[in-house]
C-alpha cells in the first residue's frame, strides 16, 4: 500500500471519528443549551451532567420499532435516510486542517483531498442533501411529508444560490478553488493585530453565507420543512427508529461541515494569528484541527442560540427573503468584490 493512500485513510479516519461524535455531543449541547436559555435543567440524570444522555438516546433509537407505512414507496423510503448522510460524510474531504507537514520524510498536506476544484466539489456534494428530503417526503405517502418535501426543495434551491454567490466572492481575490489557498490568503494581519480574515472585508458576504447556511441546514428560523407545529414533523413524519436517527445525524453533521466551511472561508480556517505551527507533524495536525474545530464550535453554538431565540418564518416570507433580499445582496457583494479585486485593493 502506498504511503499516500495510508495518509489519506488516516486523515479520513480522523475526520470520521470527529464527525460521528458531533451528533451526540451536539444533541447534548442543544438540550442543555436550550435548557439554560429556557430557565430549566435539561437532561442531567444519565452520567455526569447528563453527558451520556446521547448514548441512552442511541440505544432507544435502535430498540424502537421501525415502521414503514403500508402505502409507502419502500425502496425510496429506505434510501432517503441513507442519502441524508452522504453530503454530511463526504464534504469534509476538501476542508484543510493545517499547513503541509513533513511526516516520515514526506510532504503531506493536511487535507484529505487537495482537489483543485475543492469548493466546487463541496457545493456539488452539499446540494445532494435536498434529494434525501424530497425522497423522504415523496415516498412516505403522507400529505404532511409531501408538503415538507416541497418546502425543502424550494427552500434549498433558493438559498443555495445566495450561498454559492457568497462563496464565489470569497474565491475571487484568492484566484483558486482550493480551500488551502483560501486559508493561505487569510494569513497575516491588518495594522499588525487585526487578523486578515475574510469575515472583515467581506462582511456582507459573510452575513449572506451565515443566513443561507441556516436555511441550508433547515434550522430555526428556517426549519419549515419539518415545522413541527404546522406539518407535524414535515418530511420525516413517517420515519421512526434508526431511520429517523439518520436524518437527525445528517442534520447535525451537515451543520458541523457547514460550520467548518464557514470557519475556513471567513475565519481563517486552521490559521490563528501568532500561532506559528512548529514542532513534530502530529503536533501541527492536532493544533490545526483544534483551531478549526474551535472556530466551528463557535458557529455551532451560534446555531443553537439562534434556534432558541427566534420564531419561524412563513413560507412566502422565506422565499421573499431568499430571492428578494439575500440573492441581490449576494450579487451586489460579488460585483463589489470583483471591482475591488480588479482594482487591486483586495
Amino acid at each position, binding site marked *: 500500500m502506498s504511503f499516500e493512500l495510508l495518509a489519506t485513510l488516516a486523515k479520513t479516519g480522523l475526520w470520521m471519528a470527529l464527525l460521528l461524535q458531533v451528533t451526540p455531543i451536539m444533541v447534548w449541547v442543544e438540550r442543555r443549551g436550550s435548557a439554560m436559555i*429556557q430557565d430549566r435543567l435539561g437532561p442531567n440524570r444519565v452520567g455526569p451532567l447528563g453527558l451520556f444522555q446521547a448514548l441512552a438516546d442511541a440505544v432507544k433509537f435502535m430498540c424502537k420499532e421501525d415502521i414503514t407505512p403500508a402505502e409507502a414507496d419502500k425502496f425510496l423510503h429506505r434510501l432517503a435516510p441513507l442519502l441524508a448522510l452522504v453530503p454530511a460524510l463526504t464534504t469534509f474531504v476538501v476542508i484543510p486542517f493545517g499547513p503541509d507537514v513533513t511526516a516520515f520524510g514526506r510532504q503531506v498536506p493536511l487535507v484529505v483531498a487537495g482537489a483543485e476544484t475543492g469548493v466546487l466539489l463541496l457545493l456539488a456534494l452539499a446540494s445532494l442533501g435536498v434529494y434525501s428530503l424530497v425522497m423522504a417526503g415523496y415516498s412516505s405517502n403522507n400529505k404532511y411529508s409531501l408538503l415538507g418535501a416541497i418546502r425543502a426543495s424550494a427552500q434549498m434551491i433558493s438559498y443555495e444560490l445566495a450561498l454559492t454567490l457568497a462563496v464565489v466572492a470569497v474565491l475571487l481575490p484568492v484566484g483558486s478553488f482550493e480551500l488551502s489557498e483560501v486559508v493561505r490568503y487569510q494569513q497575516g494581519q491588518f495594522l499588525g493585530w487585526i487578523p486578515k480574515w475574510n469575515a472583515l472585508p467581506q462582511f456582507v458576504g459573510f452575513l449572506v453565507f451565515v443566513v443561507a447556511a441556516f436555511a441550508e441546514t433547515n434550522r430555526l428560523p428556517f426549519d419549515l420543512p419539518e415545522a413541527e407545529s404546522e406539518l407535524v414533523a414535515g418530511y420525516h413524519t413517517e420515519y421512526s427508529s434508526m431511520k429517523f436517527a439518520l436524518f437527525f445525524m445528517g442534520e447535525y453533521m451537515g451543520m458541523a461541515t457547514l460550520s467548518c466551511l464557514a470557519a475556513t472561508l471567513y475565519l481563517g480556517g486552521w490559521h490563528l494569528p501568532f500561532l506559528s505551527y512548529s514542532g513534530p507533524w502530529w503536533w501541527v495536525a492536532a493544533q490545526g484541527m483544534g483551531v478549526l474545530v474551535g472556530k466551528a464550535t463557535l458557529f455551532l453554538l451560534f446555531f443553537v442560540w439562534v434556534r432558541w431565540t427566534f420564531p419561524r418564518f412563513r413560507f412566502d416570507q422565506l422565499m421573499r427573503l431568499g430571492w428578494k433580499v439575500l440573492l441581490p445582496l449576494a450579487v451586489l457583494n460579488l460585483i463589489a468584490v470583483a471591482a475591488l479585486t480588479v482594482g487591486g485593493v483586495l
Partner: protein
Amino acid sequence: MPLLEKYPPDSVVPVAGLDQPTWIVHRDSLKELAAELQADSASGFDLLLDLCGADFPGRPDRFEAIYHLYSVERKERLRLKVPVPEDDPVLPSLAGIWKAANWFEREAFDMFGLRFEGHKNLRRILTHEAFEGHPLRKDYDAARRWILTEDKVYRPQPRPDDGESDDDMFEQMTINIGPSHPAMHGTFRVVAHLDGEVITASEVEIGYLHRCFEKMAETHTWQQVIPYTDRLNYCSSFINNVGYCRAVESLLGVEAPPKAVWARTILSEFSRIMDHCVCNGSTLVDAGALTNFWYFFQPREEIYGLLEACSGARLTVSYCRIGGLAEDLPPDFEAHCRRLLEMIPGFMDDIERLVNKNRIWLDRSVGVAAISGEEAVNWGWTGPCLRASGVANDVRRDHPYDLYDTVDWNVPVLPGGDVYDRYRVRMLEIRESLKIIRQLLDRGMPEGPHIIDDPHIALPPKEDAYNQMEAMIYHFKLIMDGIQVPAGEVYSMVEGANGELGFYAISDGSGKPYRLKVRPPCFPIMSTFSDLIRGGTVSDAVVSLGGLNVIAGELER
C-alpha cells in the same frame, strides 16, 4: 316600548325577569323582531351572547328557545324566550342576522332537536353522527350509551365557493389538521382544502371532548356541579368556579362574605394571568418561538403553587363554594401573593423584549387572521379577542361584580384585530391584572369568615357535624338533598379569561339544577375560524388558532 306595538297582540310579551328584561316572543314574529333589534340603532342589540334550548315536558309548548342579547354600546341585556311545540319544533334561523347563531343553532338542534328553518348546515355539532335522540331532553336517560361506528361519520369535503380556483394545472389537496395534530390545542379537527399552501376552504369539526356537562349538571346537586365547572376552561378553572357560584348565589339571593369576595377577585386575576400565559405561550410556540413558552410557564407554575396552597389542587381547583370559599385562606396568603407580584413582571419583560419588535414575529402576526370590531361582534366575540379588534367590552368594567369597581384599572383596547394585537392585548391585561391584585393586597385582607354563615347553604365545620345534633342534620340534608335553590332563572356572567363566561341557570326549587347552560366564550369565536383562515396559509391558520385561545373543555363541554 314603541318597537313592540306593530306586532300582533300576544306575540311579544315583556315579563318581569329576575335579572334582566325578558320578552316572550311568538316564533312567527321572531325573525322580524330579531332583525329589528339587531339593526335598530336606538336599541342595537348587536351581540347574540347565547342561544339555548330548554325542555318543559309539562307545558303545552314543550320546548323553549332562549336567546340572550347584548348591546355593546348601551351595555344592556335582553332575553327572548320562544316557546316551541313538541310536534313541530321549528323556528326561524337567525344565522343571517347574527352569525353567532350559526353554531348555537346547531347545538340547540343537537341537544333538543329544535329545527331552525333556513339554516344552511343544520348538523349535529357536539355529539357523534351515530348518536340517536337529543341528550338534553328531559326524557333522555342520562345513563344511555351508544356504540358509535365509523361508517356513520360525517366526512367534511370543503370546497372553495368560487369555481375559478379549480385550476386543472395544479392539483389541489385536502388535508386533515387534527384532531391529533401538534398545533391543535385540544382535539379539534380542521379539514382544509389547499391550493399550494393557501387554504381556499375549510370546515371545522368539534365535539371530540364533548361530555355533556349540562346533562351532568342536571343529575347532580348544585354543589356537586362545581368540580365539573373546573373542566370547562381548565386553564383558568377558578374563574369558572366563581362564575358558577355567583349564578347560584344570585338565585339564592345571598352574597359571599367580604373575605371570600376579596380572595375570589385576587385568585380570578391570577387565573386570568395564567390563562393568558398559556394562550400567548402556545401562540408563540406555534410560530416556532419555543423559549417564550417556558418564560410564560414559570409564572404559571408559581401561580399553581398559590392555588395549591389554598385548595390542595393545581389544575382543577374547585376552591369556590356556593356562598364563599371551600377553605379558609392559608396564613401566608398575602405574602405568597406579593412574591408572585414581584416575580411575574420580570418574565413578562423578558418575553416582550424577545418578541414585541422581532421582525419575524411581526411578519407572522400583523394582519394575520384580522377581523374588524363590527364583524367580531356579529360573530359573538367577547373578551380579549374582541378588545383586540377595538371594541372596549369587558364584563368587569361594564357590569362590575366582586371588587372590580373599587379598584383602579384600565381595559386595554387595540385596533388591529389580528394575531399580533390579540397577543398584545393579553400582555397588557396581565399587567392590569397585576395592578388589580396589588391594590387589593394593599387594602389588606378583610376580617371575617370565608363562607356565608347560613346552615342551609354552607356545610357546618367538621367537628360540629360530628358533635352537635343540629349541625349533623344540616350536614346530612345538604349532602343528601343539596342546597334548596328557589325556583327561578338567572343569567349571571363573569369576565372569563377568554370573554364573557355566562351561566344561565333555571331552578325548579329542588336541590338540583333544572337546566344549566354555559355560555362558553370560545364557542362563537371558534365558529368564526373557518372564515378567519380562508385565504391564509397553513402556517397562518396554526398561529391564529393559538391566539384565539380556544379551550376544548369549554368549547365542547
